[in-house]
């Protein structure tokens, strides 16, 4: 697998990261090395093995549909960089 500049730029854009030319160069090399290392796993024969998404063999963790007190608006907004009395304030979104 070979990581390309285009892929790095694309992923950076999706993650809203502004990378300089130098950084793109560096990331391309580093990501390529990381992926190349993980690539080694492909040498194993995984034919017929169900993909695993979790390290622990656990299933069906449920909660009952019972409400419990919410934290409330003051608590919710306490760390907001900007807020009104009851809402988070963000730069204007144009749809």
């Amino acid at each position, binding site marked *: 697998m070979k990581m390309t500049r285009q892929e790095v730029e694309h992923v950076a854009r999706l993650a809203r990261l502004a990378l300089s030319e130098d950084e793109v160069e560096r990331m391309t090399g580093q990501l390529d090395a990381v992926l190349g290392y993980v690539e080694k796993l492909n040498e194993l024969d995984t034919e017929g093995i169900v993909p695993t998404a979790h390290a622990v063999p656990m299933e069906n963790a449920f909660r*009952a549909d019972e409400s419990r007190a919410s934290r409330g608006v003051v608590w919710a907004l306490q760390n907001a960089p900007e807020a009104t009395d009851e*809402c988070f304030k963000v730069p*204007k979104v144009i749809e």
Partner: protein
Amino acid sequence: MDSRYEVVIGLEVHVQLTTKTKIFCGCSKDFGQQPNSQTCPVCLGLPGALPVLNRQVVEDAIKAGLATNCQIAPRSIFARKNYFYPDLPKGYQISQFELPICEHGWLNIETEENGQKKIGITRIHMEEDAGKLLHSDGDSSQVDLNRACTPLLEIVSEPDMRSADEAIAYLKQLHQIVVYLGVCDGNMEEGSFRCDANVSIRPWGQEEFGTRAELKNLNSFRFIKQAIEYEVERQADLIDDGGTVVQETRLFDADKGTTRSMRGKEEAHDYRYFPDPDLVPLVVSDDWVDSVRGALPELPDSKLARYQQELGLPAYDAGVISAERDLAEYFEALVALHDNAKVCANWVMGEVSRALNENGIPVTACPVSPQLLAGILERIADNTISGKIAKTVFEDVWNTGKTADQIIDEKGLKQVTDTGAIESILDEVIAANQGQFEELKGGKDKLTGFFVGQVMKASKGKANPGMVNQLLKKKLEG
């Protein structure tokens, strides 16, 4: 609709569930509360918070899947759908991608041109809703996260619909089913049942699909129809002018009846789904599916058929009554007490529905219970009161909560079936209208109604009209 091209429509419906709490936390999800009051670390997307799946959401998804002929996956997983938007605090939406809970379903719709048509359902998956953006005039928008983490089912159809009318028929049926199941309140204005439509066109006979536009912001059946029809025209004009349709998201503008491009969202289609490490796989056993299946209510389709086949109702009556679950249940309770199904249907669609509409109350709160109404219908059946008097009795039962028998007694509404009594009234009427009586004798048959009417009037509606007719006939012969 435009016939230059064949229209292809697929629909994505978001159904908000009626659970008490959110999908991954215990916050209440009531509509219309103070912004951000119904939030906690999980639905605010704070680091380190652990989402835990609401079991009722799974149960509702299974219900919806079974009611739409889907296969229920024995094993399904949750995934993160990654994108940035201010109403999405975590930067990803928890949804299902690979291995959704339901797949391969279908619904039969009635179409005007082609009769019954099968519409495929690709999949149904569970996911969380985003918060809500409130737009104010200034240079900022406001975010309310009460809706964040509200449970949704996304129901994705195959691109099987060929006109706006077919799309509406499918949506109405789906809407009816989820409301019947009790998994959704069906309120489109409040966003409990939302629809996105994928619309494309292609030359007749071409197998390959055209490029589609995804229409959003469709919150009524009327708007959906308008938006699809507008979009089909737009695409046809574009192609006829030598242009090409671009794959994009378009917003319906209800004021103008048009759709417009939502620029800037195109790039966001790279969602980089991956299994959510916070949520363990969901395993649904056959036993679980069977127990949900056993508890499913009878669905509108089946009621419609049964009312016609077993109860002998006309298709129209069966359709009106089965359309709404509460009305159907009222009707069924009534039929269990009174064996003339057609009479029951007439009253449910007539007096009952009229009174409910006039008073603006749901059938579940109808002051005339099926028991009370059956009491009225019994007295019509045994000739104690006429159908006409029965309507005033109905009004009184509605207003007082008393039984039909009590009201008939108190008001002396018992129909006069005593031949002698009716005959003497008839004699008086004839005596007062000698001229007309001679004319009637002479063959002016339409005067029969006049005489019956006069007797009914003189008896204050209590004479049995059938008997009045018979006696009058006798007088004419004798």
